C-alpha cells in the first residue's frame, strides 16, 4: 500500500478520519471519504489510468467531472461490473475495485502501443480507406478491429440491482446547482413555485466549490453555497436532486434525469433503495445553469499523463487537498489559469511556471503570481513535451505571428495545467432545438434562439463573471417562476468579489518544433485519438461539412461526445476553409448528455413485470395436473397435459384421439370477447365483416372474417346475436385489443351516424369447450333447462340456461369439426365449471387437451388460424374462403381491394394442403416449397408451409401451405428442400378429416 504522497495535511472537503481502501488494477491504495476515484488516484500520484483508443498511448486523468475524456474505468466485478465509467465521477467507497481499460496485457506494457509507432499509417478516415477492399475480407478485418478498438468489457451476467423510474411535474426545473443555478432556484423557490434543482455532482455549488479566492455576500463561497442549499431544503415545494444528471431534453419540456441513488455507497447501499432512479420530468419552465467546460490547448504531444485541465487541477487542490504534481507548468490563453497557479503554489507545489500565449494578462493576477515566486512567460507556448508514462519536461518558445520564435527553454515538470478557455455547456439548450450564437469576446458558442420554455443563465449562457452569473440566475429564475404563474418578492442578489480578468486570446493550434503532423501529435479529441493534423487532412480531402468531418475523423464520437474537443475541431476546420467559426456550424447535440444505464430507463419493468402475464380461470387446475404451458400473447395457456411421463407427441396424440372418440375439454377463455350493442349493431357488423349479418336470427351464431381496407385478413371469430340489438363477438386470443380498437375507430371516425357501442368482456366470461361424440351426453347430465336436440339447439346457435348450477350461455359451435359446445359462465365460476365437468365426464373418458391438440384438430378439418396461415399479406381470396365474401353487399371494409390487379393474379400464393410421400414425416413449419429440386440453391420458391403436424386421427402427417396458384396444382408433387433430406409432398385440398363436415352437425 502506498502513501498518499500528493495529499496535503489539511484543506479540501474530504474526511481524513474515514480512510477507504480501494484497488486499481489489483494494487491497493487508500483514499478518504469525500474523494472521487480520480482524486484518490491523484493523491497516490497515479496519473496513468488508461491507453488511448487508436494508438494505445498512455493516458492520464484530464478533468474533474463529466467532461473527462481519458479516465474511463471498468468499475466493480462480476454481475455488478460496469464498463466505461469516468473516474472523475466515481465517488470512493471502502473496498472499491477498479480496472483500467483498453490495455493488453497490462497498463504499463501494452502491445497495441505499436500502433503509435505506426501512426503514419493511421490517418484520418483510416477505417474507411483501409478496410473497404476487398469486401470479402471484411469478416477478417472486423475481428481485428473489434479486438483492437474495445473500451470496457460488457457484463454478461444478469444485473442484480434494482432500478426505479419516477414521473414528476414542476413549475421550474433548474438544471445545474452552481452559483447561477442556486440563485435561480432561490428566486423561483421564494415565489412558492414547485422547483426541482438537479445537479450531476454529489454536492451543490458547481465550479464555485473549487474557488478559494472569492467571496459572496461577504462570506466565503462555501458558506454562501451551504446557506443557499439550506434555504432551498427548507422550502416545501423545492426538491433537491444531487447526483442527478439531466441527460435528455425532449418536446414539450419533457426531460429525463438519472439519479445515482446508491452508487456512492458501494456494498453499504441499503437494500430498500434502488441503485439508480430515472426521473421523467414535465416542467412548465426550464432554467439551464449547466456551467461551462474548460477546453484543452492543442499543443505538441498534449496527451501525456500529467497533462490536465487547469480547472481540474484547481479543483483537486481546493476540494480534495490533492496537489497532483510538484513541478507545475500552467499553460493558458486566458487569466483564469493564473488562479490555478496561485492556489497550487499556496498549497505547497514546489515549482510553478505560467506560460501564457498572450503578451498581456490581468495585472492583479500577474502580480499575485510573481509575489509567490511563480515565473511567468508571456507570449510563449509549449512547443514540445517529453515523458513516457508521465510528462517530465516541456520546451517553451516565444510565439511569433504564425510560428515559433528563437530561444527555446526546457523546463522540468511533472504536471501541465492547460486552459484554452471555456465552452458553455449548451447541450440541453441545443437538444431542445434552441439555436447557438458565436461570441468572439469569449470565443465560444452561447445559447441563441430559444424554442421551448427555457432560458440559460450563468456560464452556460456565456456569463462568466461570478457576480453577473448570480444576478442572471436570479433574474432568469424569477422570470421562469412568473411565467409559470408565481410572482415572488425581489431579494437583493449578493455581491461577489473575485479576481479581475481580461480577455481570452484564442489559439486553436499551438505550433510545435516541426510542421503539424510530423513527429509530435497535437491531440484535439483525446478519447478517439483525433489530432489537429487529422482534422486538417479531412478538411483538405473535402470533408468540409462539420457533420461529415465528425464521422470521417470520429472526433466527438466517443463516450464523452467531444465535450472538450468539439470547438477546437470546428476552429481548425474553419481555419482550413478560411471561414469564420460560426460559418462552419456545429454538429447536433443529441441525448443523453452523459451515458445512462439502461436499467434506469426500464426501472421496475423487467423480468416478470416487463409485461403482464394473464392467467385463465382454470390455471390452478392445469398447474396442479402437470400441464405444460405456452405463451399466447400475454396469456399463459395450457399447451398439453402429459400423463405419467409422456412425451409431448404422445400426449398430443392421446388428446387428439380422445377429442374425436370420447370427450375433449379445453379452456378457451382467452378468446377475445366484445359485447356490442346499439340499434345499428347489425348494420355495423355488416360493414366490418365480409359476409352478411342483417338477417342473422336472435340466438344464432355466424363465423365472420374481418379484413383490413387493403383486403388482407385481419381477424376472425364467431359472433352471436344475443338480442335484436345486442351481439357477442369473439376474436382471436392475440387480436382482442386490436379488434376492439378497430371497431372503435370505424365507429367514431367513419360511421359516427351508426348507433353502436363496444365493451371488452374477455375477462368477464370463462369459456370451457367440450367436444367429441359424447359431449352432448355429458352436457345433458349437467343441464336440464336447455333442449339439446339438434332441432331445438342446432349447430351455430346459442342458448341461455343452467350448467352445473351456473348461469351459462352455451354456444353450439366447433373449432375441431366435432360436435362441440362452448360453455360461457361468469369468470369466477370457470374453475368450478371445469372441475364439475371433469368429475361428471370421467365415465365418458373426458380428456383435457391443450393448445397444441387444438391446433392439430382444427388443421385436420382445414380451419385457418389468423396469424398462422396469414401474415398480413394474405388476402381473404388467397384462403379459398370466397364462400364467406359477400357478392351482394354494396360495401364492407376491404371489398374494393379484393379486385385490385395484384389480388386477382392467378399466381398468388393460395392455401392448399400437403401430404408427404412418407406418412410419418412431418415438415417443419415455415419451410420453403419448390416445384423443381436442384442440387444446390438458388431454387425457385413457390410457397411455404404454414401449419404442419402429425395427426393421430389421420394416422399420418398433415400440413397446410401457401403455394403460388396452389388450387390449380391439385395432385402435383412438390419438394421441401431441407438440407440433406428433401421431403416430397402432394398438393391436396386442405381438409384431412371428415371432409363432408358431418360430425359437427351430428
Amino acid at each position, binding site marked *: 500500500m502506498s502513501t498518499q504522497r500528493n495529499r496535503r495535511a489539511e484543506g479540501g472537503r474530504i474526511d481524513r478520519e474515514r480512510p477507504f481502501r480501494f484497488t486499481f488494477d489489483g494494487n491497493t491504495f487508500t483514499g478518504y471519504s469525500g474523494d472521487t476515484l480520480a482524486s484518490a488516484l491523484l493523491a497516490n500520484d497515479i496519473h496513468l489510468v488508461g491507453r488511448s483508443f487508436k494508438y494505445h498511448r498512455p493516458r492520464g486523468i484530464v478533468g474533474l467531472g463529466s467532461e473527462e475524456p481519458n479516465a474511463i474505468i471498468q468499475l466493480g466485478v462480476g454481475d455488478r461490473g460496469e464498463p466505461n465509467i469516468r473516474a472523475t465521477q466515481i465517488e470512493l467507497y471502502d473496498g472499491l475495485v477498479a480496472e483500467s481499460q483498453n490495455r493488453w496485457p497490462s497498463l504499463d506494457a501494452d502491445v497495441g502501443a505499436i500502433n503509435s509507432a505506426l501512426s503514419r499509417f493511421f490517418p484520418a478516415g483510416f477505417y474507411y480507406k483501409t478496410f473497404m477492399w476487398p469486401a470479402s475480407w471484411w469478416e477478417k478485418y472486423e475481428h481485428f478491429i473489434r479486438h483492437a478498438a474495445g473500451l470496457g468489457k460488457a457484463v454478461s451476467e444478469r444485473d442484480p440491482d434494482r432500478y426505479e423510474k419516477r414521473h414528476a411535474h414542476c413549475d421550474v426545473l433548474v438544471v445545474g446547482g452552481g452559483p447561477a443555478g442556486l440563485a435561480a432556484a432561490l428566486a423561483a423557490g421564494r415565489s412558492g413555485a414547485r422547483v426541482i434543482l438537479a445537479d450531476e455532482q454529489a454536492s451543490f455549488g458547481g465550479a464555485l466549490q473549487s474557488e478559494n479566492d472569492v467571496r459572496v455576500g461577504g462570506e466565503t463561497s462555501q458558506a454562501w453555497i451551504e446557506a443557499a442549499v439550506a434555504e432551498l431544503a427548507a422550502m416545501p415545494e423545492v426538491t433537491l436532486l444531487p447526483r442527478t444528471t439531466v441527460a435528455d431534453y*425532449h*418536446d*414539450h419540456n*419533457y426531460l429525463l434525469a438519472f439519479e445515482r441513488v446508491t452508487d456512492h455507497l458501494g456494498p453499504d447501499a441499503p437494500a430498500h433503495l434502488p441503485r439508480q432512479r430515472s426521473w421523467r420530468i*414535465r416542467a412548465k419552465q426550464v432554467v439551464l445553469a449547466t456551467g461551462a467546460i474548460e477546453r484543452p490547448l492543442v499543443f505538441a504531444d498534449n496527451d501525456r499523463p500529467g497533462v490536465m485541465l487547469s480547472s481540474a487541477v484547481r479543483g483537486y487542490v481546493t476540494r480534495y487537498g490533492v496537489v497532483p504534481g510538484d513541478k507545475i507548468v500552467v499553460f493558458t490563453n486566458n487569466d483564469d489559469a493564473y488562479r490555478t497557479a496561485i492556489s497550487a503554489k499556496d498549497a505547497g507545489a514546489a515549482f510553478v511556471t505560467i506560460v501564457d500565449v498572450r503578451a498581456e494578462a490581468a495585472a492583479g493576477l500577474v502580480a499575485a503570481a510573481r509575489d509567490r515566486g511563480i515565473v511567468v512567460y508571456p507570449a510563449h507556448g509549449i512547443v514540445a513535451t517529453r515523458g513516457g508514462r508521465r510528462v517530465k519536461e516541456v520546451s517553451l518558445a516565444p510565439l511569433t505571428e504564425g510560428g515559433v520564435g528563437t530561444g527555446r527553454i526546457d523546463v522540468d515538470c511533472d504536471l501541465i495545467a492547460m486552459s484554452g478557455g471555456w465552452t458553455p455547456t449548451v447541450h440541453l439548450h441545443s437538444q431542445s*432545438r434552441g439555436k447557438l450564437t458565436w461570441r468572439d469576446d469569449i470565443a465560444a458558442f452561447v445559447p441563441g434562439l430559444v*424554442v421551448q420554455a427555457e432560458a440559460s443563465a450563468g456560464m452556460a449562457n456565456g456569463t462568466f463573471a461570478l457576480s453577473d452569473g448570480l444576478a442572471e440566475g436570479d433574474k432568469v429564475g424569477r422570470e421562469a417562476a412568473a411565467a409559470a404563474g408565481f410572482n415572488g418578492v425581489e431579494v437583493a442578489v449578493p455581491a461577489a468579489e473575485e479576481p479581475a480578468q481580461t480577455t481570452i486570446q484564442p489559439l486553436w493550434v499551438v505550433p510545435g518544433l516541426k510542421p503539424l503532423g510530423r513527429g509530435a501529435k497535437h491531440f484535439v479529441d483525446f478519447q478517439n485519438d483525433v489530432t489537429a493534423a487529422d482534422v486538417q487532412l479531412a478538411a483538405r480531402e473535402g470533408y468540409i461539412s462539420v457533420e461529415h468531418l465528425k464521422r470521417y475523423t470520429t472526433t466527438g464520437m466517443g463516450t464523452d461526445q467531444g465535450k472538450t474537443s468539439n470547438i477546437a475541431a470546428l476552429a481548425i476546420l474553419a481555419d482550413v476553409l478560411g471561414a469564420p467559426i460560426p460559418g462552419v456550424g456545429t454538429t447536433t447535440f443529441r441525448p443523453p448528455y452523459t451515458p445512462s444505464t439502461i436499467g434506469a430507463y426500464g426501472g421496475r419493468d423487467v423480468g416478470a413485470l416487463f409485461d403482464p402475464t394473464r392467467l385463465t380461470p382454470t390455471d390452478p387446475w392445469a398447474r396442479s395436473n402437470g400441464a405444460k404451458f405456452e405463451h399466447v400473447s400475454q396469456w399463459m395457456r395450457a399447451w398439453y397435459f402429459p400423463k405419467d411421463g409422456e412425451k409431448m407427441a404422445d400426449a398430443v396424440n392421446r388428446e387428439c384421439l380422445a377429442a374425436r372418440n370420447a370427450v375433449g375439454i379445453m379452456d378457451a377463455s382467452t378468446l377475445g370477447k366484445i359485447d356490442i350493442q346499439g340499434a345499428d349493431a347489425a348494420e355495423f357488423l355488416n360493414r366490418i365483416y365480409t359476409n352478411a349479418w342483417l338477417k342473422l336470427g336472435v340466438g344464432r351464431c355466424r363465423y365472420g372474417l374481418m379484413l383490413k*381496407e*387493403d383486403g388482407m385478413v385481419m381477424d376472425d371469430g364467431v359472433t352471436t346475436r344475443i338480442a335484436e340489438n345486442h351481439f357477442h363477438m369473439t376474436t382471436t386470443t392475440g387480436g382482442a385489443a386490436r379488434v376492439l*380498437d378497430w371497431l*372503435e*375507430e370505424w365507429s*367514431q*371516425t*367513419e360511421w*359516427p351516424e351508426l348507433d353502436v357501442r363496444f365493451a371488452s368482456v374477455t375477462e368477464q366470461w370463462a369459456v370451457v369447450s367440450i367436444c367429441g361424440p359424447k359431449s352432448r351426453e355429458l352436457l345433458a347430465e349437467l343441464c336440464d333447462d336447455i333442449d339439446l336436440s339438434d332441432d331445438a339447439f342446432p349447430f351455430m346457435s346459442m342458448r341461455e340456461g343452467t350448467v352445473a348450477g351456473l348461469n351459462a350461455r352455451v354456444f353450439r359451435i366447433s373449432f375441431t369439426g366435432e360436435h362441440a359446445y362452448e360453455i360461457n359462465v361468469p369468470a369466477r365460476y370457470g374453475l368450478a365449471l371445469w372441475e364439475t365437468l371433469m368429475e361428471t365426464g370421467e365415465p365418458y373418458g373426458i380428456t383435457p387437451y391443450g393448445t397444441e391438440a387444438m391446433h392439430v384438430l382444427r388443421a385436420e378439418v382445414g380451419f385457418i388460424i389468423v396469424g398462422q396461415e396469414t401474415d398480413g399479406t394474405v388476402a381473404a381470396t388467397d384462403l379459398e374462403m370466397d364462400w364467406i365474401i359477400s357478392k351482394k353487399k354494396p*360495401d364492407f371494409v376491404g*371489398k*374494393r*381491394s379484393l*379486385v*385490385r*390487379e395484384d389480388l386477382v393474379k392467378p399466381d398468388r400464393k393460395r392455401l392448399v394442403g400437403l401430404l408427404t410421400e412418407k406418412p410419418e414425416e412431418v415438415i417443419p413449419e415455415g419451410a420453403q416449397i419448390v416445384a423443381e429440386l436442384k442440387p444446390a440453391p438458388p431454387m425457385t420458391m413457390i410457397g411455404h408451409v404454414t401449419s404442419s403436424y402429425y395427426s393421430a386421427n389421420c394416422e399420418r402427417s398433415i400440413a397446410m401451405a401457401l403455394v403460388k396458384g396452389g388450387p390449380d396444382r391439385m395432385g402435383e408433387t412438390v419438394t421441401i428442400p431441407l438440407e440433406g433430406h428433401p421431403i416430397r409432398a402432394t398438393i391436396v385440398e386442405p381438409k384431412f378429416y371428415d371432409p363432408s363436415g358431418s360430425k359437427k352437425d351430428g
Partner: protein
Amino acid sequence: MLMIRCPWCGEREETEFHYGGEAHKLRPLNADALSDREWSEYLFLNHNPKGVYLERWSHARGCRRWFNMVRDTVTSEIIEIYPMGSLPSSPEGKAAYESNWRRQTAAEANAKGEAASSEGDGA
C-alpha cells in the same frame, strides 16, 4: 414526448394516446367506380409534409375517443385540437387542409359524391 390535451380528459402524456395518421381521408362511397390507381391514392398514399399537418389521434389508454389535431411536424407544436367530423378553424389548419394534394383526388370526389372518376369505370 408530447403533452396532449384530450378534449374529454384534459392534459395527458403522449404514451396514453395512439397515433391515427392523416386526418380527412374521406372514404370513397362508390369505390367500384375508382380505378386501381385512384383507389390506391386513398388506400396507400399519405401526405407527409414538413410543417403543419392534420392528423388523427385516439386516447387509447384513456377514454378511447378519437379527435383531430393540427400539429407542426418540425416543432411538435400542437396548434389546434378539434372533433372528428369537423374541419380545423385555425388559419394554419385551414391552409394545411386546402393545400393537401388529396383535395384534388378522384377518391375524395367520389367520397363526396361529386364528379365520376376521370379514368373510367376502374378495375
